């Protein structure tokens, strides 16, 4: 098992180097954290479209879905898939609303372990708070010409069951998350790419209404 993890880490490091990324020095790491925290502090709302690609290694298939994401401080998130299926996820005030084409469910985020983990990852990725979550993730920083990649390895059992790593790519221009890449234990990948980012554009509270 240790050998497999070592090979996996070596391969992923090789991939990062091939993208022109180099491991960050301690000074660079601090600078990156400062820039991301600054950008996050200045972003009260964020609205963007996203393209989600799920790569299924067993079937050699990629499944693409698209949608819109709305984020409002402190922890309000609306994650909406529009194609090829309609699916809505709202997290607000610790409550979750899930609406698909056949029904709507509302529950306390803390009562559903899976959604609690997913919610924490989503919010943490969007507002950058995941970088400071040292209790749940160990992180490696990589610097490229225009981007910065933070690779996070989960520490706890629940997170490990969901994924083996999460990589967040930030652009050096706005220091907001550009891409989220989640790698599962079996090797399947989910890549979410954010486009048309709107920062601090007013977003109605109605979009985060759970009740």
């Amino acid at each position, binding site marked *: 098992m240790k050998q497999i993890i070592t090979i996996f880490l070596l391969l992923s490091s090789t991939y990062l180097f091939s993208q022109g990324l180099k491991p960050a020095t301690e000074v660079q790491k601090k600078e990156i954290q400062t820039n991301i925290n600054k950008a996050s502090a200045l972003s009260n709302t964020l609205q963007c479209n996203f393209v989600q690609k*799920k790569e299924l290694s067993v079937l050699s*298939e990629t*499944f693409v879905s698209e949608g819109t994401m709305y984020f409002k401080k402190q922890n309000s998130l609306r994650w909406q898939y529009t194609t090829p299926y309609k699916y809505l996820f709202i997290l607000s005030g610790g409550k979750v609303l899930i609406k698909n084409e056949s029904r709507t469910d509302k529950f306390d985020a803390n009562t559903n*372990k899976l959604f609690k983990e*997913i919610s924490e990852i989503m919010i943490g990725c969007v507002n950058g708070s995941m970088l400071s979550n040292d209790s749940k993730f160990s992180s490696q920083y990589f610097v490229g010409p225009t981007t910065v990649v933070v690779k996070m390895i989960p520490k706890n059992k629940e997170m490990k*069951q969901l994924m083996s790593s999460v990589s967040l790519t930030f652009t050096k221009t706005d220091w907001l998350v550009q891409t989220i890449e989640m790698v599962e234990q079996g090797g399947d990948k*989910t890549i979410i790419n954010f486009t048309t980012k709107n920062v601090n554009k007013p977003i109605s509270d109605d979009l985060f209404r759970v009740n």
Partner: protein
Amino acid sequence: MLTNRYPTICFVLINLLVFVSSCASKKAPVEMNADIPTSTYSCFTYPDSTSLRLKTTINYKDIQMSGITIAKMYSDTVMGMFINEFGVTVLGFRTKETQCKLFSVIGQLDNPLIKNELKNDLGFIFLVCKYPSNTFWIDFPNNNAINLAKFPGLDSNVISQRYYKKELTGDCKRYNDTIVFTNKKQNITYTFVPIEPKK
């Protein structure tokens, strides 16, 4: 003379009766004879070059699990993955005739009883097999049987029914392009709606 032959006549008659009753059975073995014309049974039509993509919901009591099933046929084997809307892999399955194996099962479902139900149900839903065209039944060695017929009085949406030791344990129904499988014993409903390819 007749008295002497009586045991022989009885023996022949009993054998004849057994032979006739076995011929009268509706069930046919799943092993194929090259001379008999065959048909292929499958709930879904698999695309030649790409995968089958289905919006999927699984309902049990008041719990619903939703996501996407992506399935591909390789010769006589169907490989499938069930992912949730966020892209998290829920489980993978591989079916060949009535044998189904699960893999990459998410922690929340990693329970022997749940896995056994899912294995049996997915194995039946994604079953692809050949059967003699002149029969209404397919029998399998593990006491499972499939009724392919639409007998009078049977719901016209029924595609097939699953029996275990002659007890009805599930059925597959088609409503337009939607396939619904109901596990009659556990009251689990699986709904599959095809996703149109992007134009």
